[in-house]
């Protein structure tokens, strides 16, 4: 999947990937996609929940044996 920006959160635990995502999304334009790299398993549940609450779109999640890639599209203003 193509992304406009990438955020490396490998080695960080909850809540840091979510907090960094929310900070990064603030800098982006509506319609842009953010790729988040992480290895904390909690992100699989946390990111869709964060997207749902903030009104952004979670496009998908790839789990490549330990390292997880999550794609978030900024849809909230």
């Amino acid at each position, binding site marked *: 999947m193509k992304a406009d920006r990438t955020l490396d959160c490998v080695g960080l635990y909850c809540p840091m990937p979510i*907090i960094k995502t929310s900070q990064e999304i603030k800098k982006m334009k509506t319609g842009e996609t953010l790729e988040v790299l992480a290895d904390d398993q909690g992100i699989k549940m946390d990111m869709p929940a*964060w997207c749902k609450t*903030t009104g952004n779109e979670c496009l998908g999640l790839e789990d490549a044996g330990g390292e997880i890639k999550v794609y978030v599209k900024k849809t909230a203003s």
Partner: protein
Amino acid sequence: MAEKEKFTLVLFSGDLDKALAAFIMATTAASLGMEVTMFFTFWGLNIIKRDKGAIKSQGFMRKMLNILNRGGPSRLKLSKFNMLGMGTWMMKKMMKQKNMPSIEEFIEMARQMDIKMIPCSTSCGILGLPDDAFSEGIMSQAGAAYFLSQAKESKVTLFI
């Protein structure tokens, strides 16, 4: 835009582990777009005391208390396995290894996220804590009525 949903926490405990849990919830809620208020009371005030310099309070008993119970984010202890500081030291080391922010870093993060951190005025009065006893970014003191007015409008409240 609709009014932000609110999240209010009371920090009664000054234990390192409980403070961490509270700051994790508070900063996450702020990243979810919620308006967060943290109300610090009793031993919880130790979390937001400034680390440096003496805390000047009035009277013998209050002076003694603020020496024995100095507080400050770097001096918090685990609620279990403190082992005269050994356990707390090891926990801090393990947290650092896993890139977990310290309480000091969480307070700074909370400040940047516009989380309201409020010391309880009654506790400050009883324990002898002046306004300048606290870290940078801590708001002025407030009482139970202020907390309840916030809590009443909150979707989530926690007492830690």
